[in-house]
């Protein structure tokens, strides 16, 4: 007889429903918490995207009929193509199909959204000034939101150095670039951003930039420079 209440209870869980889709999805999320805990995946990053051969080809790039950038983890296992949806002064915001956005000011990453520990905003020198200088010293402040929606700010002292020109290949194009290396240090963190500038200009073609202590670095390829419409 004890089986009967258990069966009814099980049926209740199975048949649980609501007229409001939102109530349904939230109840499902509640159940998802327990699943997460049992799978021990609660702290895992949810940012997993398309993975394909790298670097991409000209043929692949022709598939896109609007400007794109390509972002990638440093190990190049996770990649995403993003399209420009925002344009605010000189700052462009690029959005991926799964809801990640990256904002750049002339190649310098100034904000991320959807990355868990997002770069909320950045206090920085004007990109044109730093990319046209050598051995320049300046300060940067990275702003994040902590778990209580308060600001956590990381202040860095940075030094920028322009390296000798070198040749790189992007989507089967060979380019001469000036590498600009920015080294930033504070008491707890140290990072080194690398920007490949089109030789003799301040135009960023590709970069490796640090987002946050949790997300660390990722790569950006400004492929729109190679697109034809």
């Amino acid at each position, binding site marked *: 007889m004890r089986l009967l209440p258990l069966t009814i209870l099980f049926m209740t869980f199975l048949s649980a429903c609501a007229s409001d889709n939102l109530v349904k999805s939230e109840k499902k999320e*509640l159940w998802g918490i327990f699943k997460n805990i049992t799978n021990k995946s*609660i702290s895992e990053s949810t940012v997993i995207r398309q993975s394909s051969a790298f670097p991409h080809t000209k043929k692949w790039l022709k598939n896109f009929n609007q400007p794109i950038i390509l972002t990638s983890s440093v190990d190049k296992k996770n990649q995403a193509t993003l399209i420009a949806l925002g*344009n*605010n002064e000189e700052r462009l915001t690029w959005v991926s199909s799964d809801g990640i*956005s990256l904002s750049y*000011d002339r190649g310098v990453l100034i904000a991320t959204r959807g990355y868990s520990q997002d770069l909320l905003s950045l206090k920085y020198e004007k990109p044109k000034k730093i990319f046209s200088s050598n051995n320049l010293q300046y300060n940067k402040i990275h702003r994040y939101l*902590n*778990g209580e*929606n308060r600001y956590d700010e990381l202040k860095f002292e940075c030094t920028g150095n322009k390296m000798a020109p070198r040749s790189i290949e992007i989507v089967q194009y060979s380019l001469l670039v000036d590498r600009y290396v920015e080294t930033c240090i504070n008491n707890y963190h140290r990072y080194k951003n690398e920007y490949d500038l089109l030789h003799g200009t301040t135009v960023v073609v590709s970069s490796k930039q640090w987002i946050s202590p949790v997300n660390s670095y990722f790569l950006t390829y400004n492929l729109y420079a190679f697109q034809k419409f």
Partner: protein
Amino acid sequence: MSFLRCLVILCLIILSFNLVLTESVKATEFEDTASLNMYGMPGEIDLPSAKNLPDGQFSISSSAFGGTIKVNLSFQILENLTGAFRYARIPGGRYNGYTWDRSFDLHYLLYREKSSFPAIAIGLRDFIGTGIYTGEYFVASKSFGSKLNVSAGIGWGRLAGKNSFNNFFGSSTRKGLDVGKGGTFHFGHFFTGDNSPFFSVTYKVNEKLQFISELSSDSYDWETASSKGFTRRSDINLGVKYIVDPTFTVMATWMHGDTLGLTVNMGINPRNSPYYSGTEPAPMPILQRKYRSKEIKLEQKIIAESQRLLNLDGIELKTMTLFGSKVEVGIINRKYFNVSQMIGRAVRILSHTTPANIEEFKINIIDFKSNLFVSKIVIKREDFAESELKFNGPEELWATVSISNSENSFFYADETSNDRLSWSLYPYLDTSLFDPDDPIRLTVGAELLAQYKFIPSTFISSSLRQPIAGTLDDIQRDPKGGLPNVRSDFMYYHRDISNSLFINNLTLDQYFKPSPNFYALVNIGFLELMYAGVRTEIIWKNNKRPYGFGLDIARVQKRDTDGRFKLKNERFSTYLASIYYDLHNDWIIKVDGGKYLAGDFGSTISIKRTFNNGWEFGAYATFTDVPFNTWGEGSFDKGLTIKAPINWFTGKKSRSYASTTIKPITGDGGAKLHLSKEKYLYDKVSEYSKKNILDNWGRVFR
């Protein structure tokens, strides 16, 4: 000499609460379960040490040895103040040879360790309750290198059971504790009687492993006198702590040379969100004026597009009016726990969908359940665009935003709408804790919730429950005496309902909004499992102010214990006036005063620590003109409240949360009606207050 003792205690209390004089101890980690002892408080094995836990840490721990089982809930209330609630099974007593006991502790870190000076803490164990564990202490802790930590302290009460000497405060006699019905403060006993020294040494082998040795002054008189307890052969306790990770620690102990013990500590810190700023999708970016569409669109098309995009973001657009350079919208927030983030998302979408000539957005927020217009936020389009990617963007935008109560009353839905009926069928869980016969009783079943809107301000709402399995109908205790049984006879309802379908509530709900700052609600019908009648709540809340006022009046009749439609011939009335104050920091205070269900007059003081991400930890106590002895076991009504937002665990946008009230004793004094959460107005309105929005304004561009 007793004057000297009082003076010293007074000085210590002043010192403890004078934050200027005390060192602020900044916790570097969010969780630290290795610093918890068997009481769930900062310490080693059984003894306290001069440590604190990371601010905000909530810990659940359980320990067992020699017939004693303790379950502790502890919370780092302030940076230096730790509090704990404990439920313990203690050998010796009338429940199968055991006593079940509730107790509360406080621990305050007075001074932080310096290179040449130890940390110092003061603590009160079981300062409210039956006093079985009652004891007070001063303890000092000093580390020597990175591996060795030594603590030495002096204890009173239970901590002066062995190796005691005369009280250096003067009062060498500690009066026998007249626990009465329990639940009262033991002011007269603090730091009285003999005192004993205690010591502990911890050696950290590595980051994971610690060896501990203690010289304990606790004589364990209760436990050793019982056949269910143990024999105290030595003053020494030995232990090994294994730190699985900062949130989980296991400790094995050899207690007093006689028995093995095991302790498990778990901790969580609301400040340490596993998803940081969240993983919800990025918001729609802003387009600069020159890139905005110049295409002239029909108003209907603008509304449809806005509705579609807002809906994708979990925001329901209910009204939209374009006039001149302004747009006024009425929206319902269905997805965002964080109102500031929701506002930011709404403005971004409106910036995208409305014509280029629109300069200002007036956003009226509608409460989903009641259709009440609650708050109005006015944001200038260009200010938002200019601030979007600036370093200090949120601060600059805040200076231009205006927030007030909405002048509108109710959202009047389209008459042809077929959304008037909403329902859900989900399992429910009902619990009853701290019954010595069975400390955890629960029933699970199915609950059908339904609501039908006649007109925007008038609803019928109901909850039908079908218990399926559980033990709530086995409660053997009887109601308390001395007062009319307005609450303590709750077991009759569970017994009589047993496995039958019952009406949990069925009410006609009428909302009113006579002016922008006044809100009212009348409920008529079966208000809750035990009462039917009429209840009215009126609140005044100006969203620009951190405070509000409320009045809750009810005339009720007891329902029959079968949970159906019959009523008993027992009538009661209650009226309570309330003051709410949202303090500048993270604390919210509520004070109720008036007449409670049993006819007693008194006041309830509630205080809760809130975290911007939605977590809340609170406590309340009700004192009425009912003498403690008449009130019965527990002496007065008190409880702890916890609220946890679901999005904290998932990183996704969601307004749902789990909440619970831990109430040690159910009595008849200070009893209130138990209505469902959505039938209280203040939280509906204050959610959209200026302070709540400001506290989370950093998320406006998230």
